[in-house]
């Protein structure tokens, strides 16, 4: 994000397939040179949005601007954006070099002139020497690189990536994430990246747009999305989160007290306007929760909220333990590193504590937009 020049702007973009609303009233501004992710569960409209930017899908309503030009109804082949498809979409009857030559040929460039550009594109994705092979002779990761080279050889204004790493195995995906990020830095092209993998979005993006059911829930940097989720859905979809339900019992300037199972929890990250007696959903990230056997003075000073709970479940995860504690009917999960675990057992009574800044509170009626399924996905 060297400068804040707008590359792509979506205004009130809506797409309906029959009666189904795939994308609803999407407003977005994507800046030049940005790595921008569209993140959401499957069916959230992120791919449809991407296809509308590419020109492969015509919007029902709204406008699309590319570098200031209205391209809403411009056919795909005239738009200066290229797409990397999830299943690569390499032409099977062409060699790797011919595949990369294809967009240049469409620009009426002679093969002899395009040669150096093809070589350059192959070098960019670290696939020099593969020009004469056919796509069928390549592995998944290699095909993905060729698809990338083919989309970049034209130097588009923006590169649209539709879950490009979805078909690769875990290790290859991690490696390709680095490759993609490096390439993006090298070419100074806006990347719009569609994914359902929140880790991928957080590690790679400059900004993320979280979508669900065709609606944007939040746009922000990975840090903002993670630490200041705008809705319970965003809170549940990105990272791990504890959800607790309670009532507002006391209201301060920018803090509220919430009664959860008789415990009084202080929250200072308020997402909405609250009145006394409101039903609320309170979120705390597991890694923000501290654990102490005796509730020492330092512990009390560090955490405004601290109370006793009993260990209900312990899951060993390699480098750490996930401990679930129970108080009343509510459960709360936290992460304890293996070195500090010290033989804790189920049934142990311990003190948990967390700071008021780490308690994010939403109105309960907002709850309908998040579901626990997304928690199971991870």
């Amino acid at each position, binding site marked *: 994000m060297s400068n804040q020049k707008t590359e792509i702007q979506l205004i009130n973009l809506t797409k309906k397939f029959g009666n189904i609303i795939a994308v609803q009233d999407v407003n977005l501004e994507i800046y030049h040179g940005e790595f921008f992710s569209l993140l959401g569960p499957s069916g959230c409209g992120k791919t449809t949005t991407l296809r509308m930017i590419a020109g492969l899908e015509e919007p029902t309503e709204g406008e699309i601007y590319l570098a200031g030009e209205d391209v809403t109804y411009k056919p795909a082949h005239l738009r200066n954006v290229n797409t990397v*498809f999830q299943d690569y979409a390499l032409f099977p*009857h062409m060699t790797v070099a011919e595949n990369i030559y*294809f967009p240049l040929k469409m620009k009426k460039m002679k093969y002899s002139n395009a040669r150096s550009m093809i070589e350059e594109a192959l070098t960019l994705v670290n696939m020099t020497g593969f020009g004469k092979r056919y796509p069928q002779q390549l592995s998944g990761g290699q095909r993905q690189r060729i698809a990338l080279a083919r989309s970049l050889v*034209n130097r588009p204004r923006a590169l649209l990536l539709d879950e490009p790493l979805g078909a690769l195995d875990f290790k290859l995906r991690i490696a390709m994430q680095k490759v993609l990020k490096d390439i993006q830095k090298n070419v100074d092209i806006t990347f719009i990246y569609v994914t359902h993998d929140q880790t991928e979005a957080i590690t790679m993006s400059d900004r993320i747009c979280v979508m669900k059911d065709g609606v944007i829930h939040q746009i922000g940097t990975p840090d903002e999305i993670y630490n200041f989720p705008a809705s319970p859905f965003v809170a549940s979809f990105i990272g791990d989160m504890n959800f607790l339900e309670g009532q507002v019992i006391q209201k301060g300037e920018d803090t509220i007290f919430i009664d959860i199972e008789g415990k009084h929890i202080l929250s200072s990250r308020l997402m909405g306007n609250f009145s006394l007696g409101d039903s609320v959903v309170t979120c705390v990230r597991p890694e923000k929760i501290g654990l102490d056997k005796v509730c020492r003075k330092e512990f009390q000073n560090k955490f405004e909220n601290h109370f006793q709970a009993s260990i209900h479940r312990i899951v060993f995860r390699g480098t750490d333990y996930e401990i679930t504690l129970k108080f009343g009917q509510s459960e709360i999960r936290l992460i304890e590193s293996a070195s500090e675990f010290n033989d804790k057992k189920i049934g142990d009574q311990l003190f948990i504590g967390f700071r008021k800044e780490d308690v994010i509170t939403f109105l309960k009626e907002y709850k309908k937009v998040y579901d626990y399924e997304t928690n199971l996905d991870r």
Partner: protein
Amino acid sequence: MKLTLTGNLNTKPRGKPSFFSKTKIGIPIIIWLFLLIIIPICIMLVTSFYIKEGSVVVKKISLKNYLEFFINPIYLPIFFRTLLLALLVSLTSILLGYPLAYLVSRKVKRFRNQLYMLVIVPLWVSYLVRIVAWRTILGRVGVLNSILLSLKIIDEPLSIFIYSPFAVYVALIYIALPYVFISIFNSLEKIPQNLLDASADLGANSFNTFLHVILPLSMPGVISGFTLAFVIALGDYIIPQQLGGLNGLMFGNLIVTQFGYAFNWPLGAALGFIMFTVAVVILLISQKFGSSEGFLE
């Protein structure tokens, strides 16, 4: 315990099934193939070297029948005319069948299946019935003449439509078209939508997408359609008999004559074997060109 686990889990050598297990599945097919195809062809080949003296077939090996094909002025011209006609029929069938298949496969959304069925439906009607139907279209008092008469384009019915190579040509195309259509349609259906999306995305307009993506990827279907039409047209003798008249005679008719009227089976077998060889050569050539089949599995 651990050591035993890392030991020989696969004691059976893999990847080399015994000859028996490899072939036993194929045995019924091999029997079928021998009984119905290979043995009859061998009998035909052997018979083609016998000669007919008077009214008896003498089992003496001779090249007389094959020489007859080259020497007798009847055979070669009709043979080449038949090849040319088969070529024209298959080319025309491709030219007519491709747009039709493209239309049904790519352009039509509603009534797509109905259109497909409409092209296929003639195959349910007996071949002979369909040929005779063409007589009512092309005949002197047929549909075509009636239309032209009522439009006052001609004053009296024309007899040029029927009993001519043209009639044979038209009817052969009619017979071959559904086969050509099916094979091109299937190859068009196999092309994934995302390749067309990618093509548009990379700057190709619909013409260039057709030229550089759809056409090359549908070539296997075109080639197999061409082969089918060619083989159908090459061996047909009913259509020339019913619609061809004297000038529309084809090589198949000459073979039928040897078997059915002249009772010269050795000569008929020799002529038949010549045509069989041509068909095999065409199939081999098209297989070589059609080897691109593996692009879209």
